[in-house]
């Protein structure tokens, strides 16, 4: 039985918020195989739950994928579905986590 695990991506240290934002979208497209149209809609309106059904499995998958990609850890106290679905908040959160503050 073959697994669908994609090769582990190298951790990126992206400094600017715009860079992090693009890295999030790029990672979602590559590793979760989101369609271009979905990514574009998410980029424009910034709300994942308005673009697609953000069910519990997807939220878990996104958290784990972003942790792996950005080499960060989502503090259990600070994660909720709202954070994962809001591109601006998510970008700011990752930026803060990367800077270690």
């Amino acid at each position: 039985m073959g697994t669908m695990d994609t090769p582990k991506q190298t951790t990126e240290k992206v400094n600017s918020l715009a860079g992090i934002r693009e890295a999030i979208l790029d990672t979602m497209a590559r590793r979760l195989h989101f369609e271009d149209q979905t990514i574009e809609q998410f980029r424009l309106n910034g709300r994942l739950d308005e673009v697609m059904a953000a069910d519990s499995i997807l939220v878990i998958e996104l958290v784990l994928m972003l942790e792996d990609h950005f080499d960060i850890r989502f503090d259990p106290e600070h994660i909720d579905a709202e954070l994962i679905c809001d591109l601006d908040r998510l970008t700011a959160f990752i930026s803060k986590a990367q800077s270690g503050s």
Partner: protein
Amino acid sequence: MIVISGHFNANRLAKYYLRRNGYPLMSVRTRKPNAMMLTGRFGVRYVAPAYYRFLDAIVEDEIQLQDRNLGVSLLRRLRDNGIVNIYIDSSASSEWFWVPFLNQERRFAGGFVRIAELTRAPLVPMQCLGNSSGFEINFGAPIRYTGKVSSEDFMERLMPLVGQLESWILAHPTQWELWTRPNKRLKK
């Protein structure tokens, strides 16, 4: 770990017992009135809400399937080395499959297998039998997955678990709750 069980009568009792002995299980449940409560306006308006108030008062640590924080709550509990309980015979999920079951085709949700794949948490089958006069809890060997498989290969993971549930039901048919629920999950 993710403890997987069926809708057996003793399930809540077993979870109550485990909690009181230091093993709290966070359960996932759907909050929909069952067939018994849908008999008329009285049932819908009074019986169902009273039943849920009763459940809320006695059942701790449940999260509803409709809760938008379900995913992060499960992840949080698993990361704290906690225990999550999910029903094998749940059919509510964005991803579900028709599976041969008790001589029919029945809809099964695959969410718990996907969560185990993603988090690498072991799946531990739990069979709960009996009633408040006496009950037993039987645990199966843990099942671990490495990585996520495609929808086609997914059935190879789900089928043995459904088979396990089926064998529990056939051995103890009077203890499975879902005989009396509406069969929306069955293929017409």
